[in-house]
């Protein structure tokens, strides 16, 4: 029987130069429920589909606020995301305290990349099993970043990660010209919710399973849940 000898840890290259353990970590994102991020010139919106373990349980949080100007949504292992969110919070508050400045998103991306890369080059530990979408603003405007367990951090106009994320990505690609030019925040949120709807199979969106995060030049990072998302359904 075929057995892959090269996928046992992150310190073994396959003969073709691949790192299977890291690729498997990328798969963990797809096990998580979907989250989508998109931006216009003035705003960034994150939308996410929350899951619950059973009917009586609460829903797993999908969005985390990290600073007044910065927050994230996650797909994959939520505990891993909390570790990373904690790190982001530390870095953000360090910047605030030492320089009196909100952290630069690009700089934050570089820091996360370095942190994640370490786990892919050493035997101890494992790569992070989570993908993040970071939404925030800094001196250079608004930004949407995607973080991957590989240590890749990229800046995008739209991103879709998690289970059945392809439908959302296709929507984002086709509609890019439209939502990029959108002036109003509500309209951008509607685009986000529409993209999310493309990915649903059995479930439907309601006020209990939809989370929305927004940030823009005129608004700090804010999470909308429950009643507050009703008008976007």
């Amino acid at each position, binding site marked *: 029987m075929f057995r892959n000898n090269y996928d046992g840890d992150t310190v073994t290259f396959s003969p073709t130069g691949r790192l299977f353990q890291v690729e498997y970590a990328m798969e963990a994102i797809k096990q998580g429920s979907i989250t989508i991020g998109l931006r216009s010139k003035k705003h960034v919106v994150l939308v996410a589909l929350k899951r619950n373990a059973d009917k009586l349980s609460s829903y797993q949080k999908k969005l985390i606020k990290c600073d007044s100007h910065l927050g994230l949504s996650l797909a994959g292992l939520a505990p891993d995301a909390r570790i990373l969110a904690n790190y982001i919070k530390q870095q953000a508050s360090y910047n605030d305290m030492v*320089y*009196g*400045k909100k952290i*630069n998103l*690009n700089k934050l991306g570089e820091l996360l990349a370095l942190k994640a890369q370490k786990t892919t080059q050493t035997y101890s530990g494992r790569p992070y099993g989570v993908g993040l979408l970071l939404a925030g603003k800094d*001196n*250079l405007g608004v930004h949407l970043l995607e973080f991957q367990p590989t240590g890749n951090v990229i800046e995008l106009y739209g991103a879709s990660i998690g289970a059945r994320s392809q439908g959302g990505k296709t929507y984002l690609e086709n509609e890019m010209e439209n939502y990029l030019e959108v002036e109003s925040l509500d309209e951008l949120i509607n685009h986000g919710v529409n993209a999310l709807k493309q990915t649903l199979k059995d479930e439907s969106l309601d006020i209990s399973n939809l989370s929305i995060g927004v940030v823009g030049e005129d608004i700090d990072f804010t999470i909308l849940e429950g009643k507050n998302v009703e008008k976007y359904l």
Partner: protein
Amino acid sequence: MNHDPYSWGRPSDSMYGEYNREIANAPTSMEQHTSSSNFNEHTTRPIVTGTSVVAIKYKTGVVIAADNLASYGSLLRFQGVERLHKVGKTTVVGISGDISDMQYLVKVLDQLSMDNNYDNDEYSDNVDELQPSYIFEYLSNLMYHRRSKMNPLWNALVVSGVDSKTGEPFLQYVNLLGVKYASPSIATGFGAHLAVPLLRRLADSEEQAAELTLEEAKKGIRDSMRVLFYRDTRSSKNYSLAIIDKDAGITYDNNVDVEDMSWKFAKDIKGYGTQKV
């Protein structure tokens, strides 16, 4: 005055009586070096020093000046020492006090601007530039941190510049105690006594500073430097002058001389040097 460096900054015995060491049970720093003791002593006095830095805001920027002298006690030890330092594109930090601590600070500031430039595309329209406020915040944290470790950097710093995004002039002060403040005009050292009154005559409030022209501000600084050279024995005739303007950027002249002086009165002063009274 007692010219022994170990007595600098201590209350004079003639005025206050000899210090009773029994009270604090502390050895002098001289004894410190010879006897083993159970506590650490860090810097207790500056050694080679730079004197005043003076600065004033005007309509669209800041003018700042400091002379180019480093004194060793009352000896005018080094000339041509630069005490105004450019950091980033729109900030000048003026440093008075201990020169070796200043040299350390210059290294720190160099690394600060290097850190800011990493992965910060310099040619795009959108650069997240180092602003005077960031530099000041960093320096004031550093100064307070060091004094809290009882190991201060023996300096008084003046951070001057303009915010490259808003064009707002910036002027703030922090010293070895971590004390900080902002004002339309700032001077360190002797300048705090001799130059500030002159500068406040030009701009006593932010509103007045916002009306001040560059020429008026420059004249104020030149006058201050002249008065300081007259009266501060640790100052030099040669000084540096920097103008940070929101439109013109930094203009920097490191070879200005104090002008329009008259020393005619000098021959009438008695009681100094080798002359007979």
